[in-house]
């Protein structure tokens, strides 16, 4: 007990140090950061810019691209829009349209998007190599259009299948892949509980079978709040099946911003205990905050999430401590960019004597989490980088959505840009 409280003290001392480390490794002068920071001063313009990024993949001709740029970005008031308006006037000159559109596409696809996602296999491979040198590994997440039909669900299943087969996992170093259950069935919803569960359990079982053969580590992603029970029910049922009872290469994400996250944590510990083998929980804070708050208001339901950032942070710590205390029944992997939370996790793990445990793994997002990753790697802590992968055109929409979601006042992008 004494040792634990001592550890907690070092935690508080550690946080600012860690934050400094993160700041140091932040690349201040990269073009996208500069661009976003410029827009960050003007919330209206920021949204417009992101709206433009969102619509870009749907545009083909130079005229459309320039037209939307003018309509969206250069229509506001203030110095930046005025500047942009001047630029957009140039677009209207004969012969300029083509070049201007090319430049915009280059800026967004080549400079901004790669900051958040990876577009092709070769980049992914070289990324993997680079990370390996520094002691970090990657986890692949597939971006794509949302699944609206059986055909698209089959396509996604095939995508996961081939990724697992060609992931190059080995018994020592498994290949990490994240799976969104809603992409396995087009009518995945709690209203359609039984069929959603039946269909998705089948697909997930199939993927776990393959994963066992090819040494892949499958993590079930957390999605919208409405899906929480469906996702957890499917996960718990599948991993408790006779054939998967012993596999440890499987995990599920848990969102700490949910008010009922602790109840889920208890349930997951119970499931792990009953099946007799540990699995992994990726503890995240949650990425759908703005969506959930808006939806709750529209449905006249109570907001099911913590509305203040600090509350989420406290809950993250609470749930993490609880799960860490059940180490070996299951494992928990902290996925956060918050230096305070990371310092807390370190303190707890240190106190429990688990800081050098082989199963401990910090998780960060590709791009946005880069400064945190570098700081962690420097400390010699194991890091898993969550890399969104997809064709630029398909992934951009998702990418923009991700940025849009996180540009609210509480969003981590804003804090990252400082």
């Amino acid at each position, binding site marked *: 007990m004494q040792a634990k409280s001592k550890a907690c003290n070092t935690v508080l001392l550690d946080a600012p140090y860690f934050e400094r480390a993160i700041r140091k490794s932040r690349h201040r002068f990269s073009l996208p950061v500069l661009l976003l920071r410029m827009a960050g001063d003007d919330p209206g313009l920021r949204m417009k810019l992101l709206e433009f990024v969102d619509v870009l993949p749907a545009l083909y001709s130079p005229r459309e691209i320039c037209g939307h740029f003018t309509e969206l970005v250069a229509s506001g008031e203030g110095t930046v829009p005025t500047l942009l308006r001047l630029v957009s006037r140039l677009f209207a000159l004969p012969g300029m349209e083509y070049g201007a559109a090319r430049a915009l596409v280059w800026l967004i696809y080549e400079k901004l998007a790669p900051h958040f996602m990876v577009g092709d296999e070769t980049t992914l491979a070289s990324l993997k190599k680079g990370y390996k040198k520094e002691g970090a590994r990657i986890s692949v997440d597939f971006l794509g259009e949302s699944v609206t039909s059986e*055909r698209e669900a089959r396509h996604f299943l095939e995508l996961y299948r081939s990724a697992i087969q060609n992931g190059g996992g080995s018994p020592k170093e498994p290949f990490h892949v994240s799976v969104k259950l809603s992409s396995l069935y087009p009518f995945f919803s709690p209203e359609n509980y039984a069929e959603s569960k039946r269909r998705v359990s089948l697909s997930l079982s199939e993927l776990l079978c393959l994963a066992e053969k090819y040494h892949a580590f499958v993590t079930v992603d957390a999605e919208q709040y409405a899906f929480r029970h469906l996702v957890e029910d499917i996960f718990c049922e599948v991993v408790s099946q006779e054939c998967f009872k012993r596999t440890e290469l499987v995990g599920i994400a848990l969102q700490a911003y949910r008010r009922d996250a602790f109840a889920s944590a208890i349930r997951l510990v119970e499931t792990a205990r009953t099946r007799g083998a540990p699995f992994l929980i990726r503890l995240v804070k949650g990425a759908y905050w703005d969506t959930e708050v808006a939806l709750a208001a529209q449905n*006249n339901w109570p907001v099911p999430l913590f509305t203040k950032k600090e509350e989420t942070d406290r809950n993250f710590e609470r749930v993490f401590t609880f799960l860490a205390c059940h180490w070996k029944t299951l494992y928990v992997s902290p996925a956060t960019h918050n230096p305070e939370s990371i310092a807390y996790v370190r303190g707890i793990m240190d106190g429990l004597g688990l800081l050098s445990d082989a199963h401990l793994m910090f998780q960060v997002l590709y791009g946005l989490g880069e400064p945190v990753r570098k700081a962690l790697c420097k400390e010699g802590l194991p890091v898993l980088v969550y890399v969104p992968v997809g064709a630029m055109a398909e992934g951009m929409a998702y990418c923009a959505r991700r940025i849009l979601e996180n540009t609210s006042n509480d969003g981590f992008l804003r804090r990252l840009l400082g």
Partner: protein
Amino acid sequence: MPTITIPDFTNEPLSDFSDPELRVWDKIGDALHFARAMVLGQTYPVIAGNYECRSNTLITRRNPSHTDEIIGHVSLSRPCDIDRGIHALETGKTLKQWMRASYAERGAHLMRVAEKFRERRFFFVALMMLEVGKSAPEADAEVSEAIDLIRWYALYAPFLEEFSNKTLHSPRGEKNSAAYIPAHPFPICASIQPWNFPLAISVGPAAAALVSGYAVLYKPSEQSSITGYHIARTFYEADIPRELFQFFPGYGDTGSYLVRHPSVSAVAFTGSNKVRQDIQRAIAEFNTSGLSHIPPRERHEKRSLALESGGKNAIIVDSDADFDDAVVGVCDSAFGFSGQKCSACSRLIVVDDKGEDGKRYETFMKRLSERVKSLHVGSPEDPKNKVGPLVDEEAVAKFRSYVAHAHNEGCRLVAEGSISDSTERRGYFVPPAIFDHVGFSSRLAQEEVFGPLLSVFCVSTFQGALSLANDTEFALTAGVYSRSPKHIECAKEGLRAGNIYVNRKITGAQVGRQPFGGFGMSGNGTKAGGWDYLLSFFPVSKVVTENTMRRGIPLE
């Protein structure tokens, strides 16, 4: 200027299916079981005030998903039943007391009705699933809508009276007041309502009429007579006197008799365009030649309070639309409740200039077709079925005739939902279908089908899409999926429809948020679920001006 506080309103929440502790599906299952054990197969009377009339001719309702199952039988109203009910109103005290009560009193009474419906949420969900084949989530949303409508009218009617009074200007020496008074010594409203929203569209106009001082003679569509009976029962259990809410099940001739009855002073109707025009003709006839038989001091014009009919609603998918959203939104709007909503999307207009590397039309249609092919058709009791049955055999025949017509006209069947033979035989099921190569003036482009049939057009410019969207006699709902601010502005401005939806589905209007109603051949412009709806229900306003000066000195 006196201050006026606007009452706060919050919508009745929908059931949260995602929370296992609420056990929504269990409750629906229990309600279905209860309905099957206790309610199904009974014979229901006509309720003409305190008289329950049973006739030998019955309307038999069958479960449209399972035609072997009989939901119940309802006695057909005879003209003498209606006369009897009206006579009771004209001779009894109930209506007199009701029309003399204040708006606030009547509003408070209706709040109790809303409470009763809240208690019976899952019973009505089950009943609608069984009688008209509505899916559970949609039926659940409809119960919320019904509760909202009652509460909205009960809340805003007293407010509007206060508003009209307080906004009157009274200078020194002059006292002005206004009151909404009954337009008729016996304000009686015939409310003739459809089966597609058997609860909400029945309850809404009834609540507006009751709060305005009318007695309601309610005729549900014959296809939703059983739900109609239980609506009447729920009103009585909230202490609304039977005379004030009378139940007259029947076919078109019952409606016609009600509308033409000289004692009926007002009509509210939702249904087909043809019947709407019939009603208007009947009202005009009564007001021009029918009045001469009535003593001068009893002469009152028959009023049409709300007359709402169909739509031929379009969604425009712009070339820069988010296809992820649009595919799902179009599909929900067109095929939700098998397209049997007046707000349903029945025309899809895709903008594609067929530029060098465009192919947007093909891309969008491919994704849409794949979704339609993925839609399961079957009983709403199994939630995996996304498309339920049509309401009856006649609706199936009508749908089939439109499909045959489409083939004859050379339209191309782009995609069709899948349906198993055994399902099809069991109930009134048809596969949802999408056609393109449809002529602009074809019946598929102009007439309301009221089934899961979507006609698709490809146009090269957004302006062309707007003009095509407006090219019908209806003006109910319209939608646009676009990410160009300019185009969205144009659509808001240029679309001719009562309710316009941008970047979302075009069905599912909510009380207080999307007051709902169309113009053109879609209705007389009333907006259900908005405060101005009440104004069309309010009787005449009597304004009194009193000179309060005596010998040049104000008596104040």
